[in-house]
């Protein structure tokens, strides 16, 4: 027996903590609400659905392009110079990751193929903001973790790892291989951060 999913909790549950107005709410809303749904296009559902065949495969993209002049085909997005420009802009962000352990690197490679698959739907929404003044920002919202959040994530991880390093040193000693491994790891993250800042 499941509850009716149409029952939506009140908006008050959106607010965290004390509910005070926080200047960072704007960034959080842009990031978090962007993840909830792909349908940011404000298009009527019928207009989107008529472009999909029975198997759910998108067809007749040119018709969609004619109806909505500012949007481009999903397939064309990959060849579009605009995504390449975006990739160039965001490339410095990716470079620091190349020196990291293999696991994240493999994850990123896996993610790249997934991101290519996701690109059509995300790029179409990016194209919708083609004439928006914050184009790069919105593109980033679609495909990447926003820069402020990325920095926050790394800084927080560094703080946690530095505290862990102190525990390692006091618990198992400075010369233990785990302590040294952690120290090297932290140095690697700091080096990548500094490299990123210098670019």
């Amino acid at each position, binding site marked *: 027996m499941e509850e009716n*999913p149409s029952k939506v909790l009140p908006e008050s549950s959106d607010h965290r903590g004390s509910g005070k107005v926080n200047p960072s709410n704007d960034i959080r809303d842009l990031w978090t609400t962007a993840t909830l749904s792909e349908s940011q296009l404000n298009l009527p559902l019928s207009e989107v659905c008529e472009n999909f065949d029975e198997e759910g495969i998108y067809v007749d993209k040119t018709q969609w392009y004619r109806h909505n002049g500012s949007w481009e085909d999903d397939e064309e997005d990959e060849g579009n110079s605009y995504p390449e420009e975006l990739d160039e802009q965001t490339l410095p962000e990716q470079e620091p990751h190349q020196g990291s352990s293999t696991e*994240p690197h493999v994850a990123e490679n896996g993610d790249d193929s997934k991101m290519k698959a996701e690109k059509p739907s995300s790029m179409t929404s990016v194209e919708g903001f083609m004439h928006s003044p914050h184009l790069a920002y919105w593109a980033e919202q679609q495909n990447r973790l926003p820069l402020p*959040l990325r920095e926050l994530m790394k800084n927080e991880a560094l703080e946690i790892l530095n505290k862990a390093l102190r525990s390692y040193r006091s618990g198992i000693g400075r010369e233990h291989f785990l302590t040294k491994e952690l120290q090297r790891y932290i140095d690697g993250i700091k080096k990548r951060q500094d490299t990123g800042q210098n670019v």
Partner: protein
Amino acid sequence: MKLKTGSFLWYLYLDKVYCLLSVRNVKVLVEYFHLLDVHGKNTLNDVLFYHFLHHVTDLKKKQIKIVFDMLDWNAVGEIGFDQFYILVCILLAHQNHLEEQFLYRHSRPVFDLLDLDGEQRIGEATFQMYRFLFNIHKQELTELFHEFDITGDQLLNYKEFKLYTIFSMDKYQKRQQAERERENLQLKNQNKGKDKEKIELFFF
């Protein structure tokens, strides 16, 4: 239990209906987890886990330890991403006051987590130990065991636990409904007051 304001997890968003993270949020959580995975084993050991939870919440050392013991269901001394993910969902549900919703939607995994010895039954002492995760008051928990321990064995089996989550969810929705009605009533009274003032101004 509170998430530190401005911490990375604080910016993640839990779906209000299903109490889970979106794919994109999970993706960034994976990235975060890998940043903390110092030794490249796709796990966090107890030290890393302690410092992570200590940094992002206001939990005490003892509480962090028992949370780790709960999540380390294989008793290997490390927790993987699955356990990390469910912990983050619990933290966010607590932060967003969605505890009842979360318990209702994910009663089975929560039951399995609380069933520390694997006997498919939860004792009151165990539940009391972990009630801080779900914001359940001590008295409320005692009443829960009295009302829902149908078999009378001082333990909750899964069906009894599920009944509790349904009841709790129902109570939560009624509370929300009552609050909404109260707010509407206050709004109406305010509007009536304003209309009355306008009429008085008009005549005088």
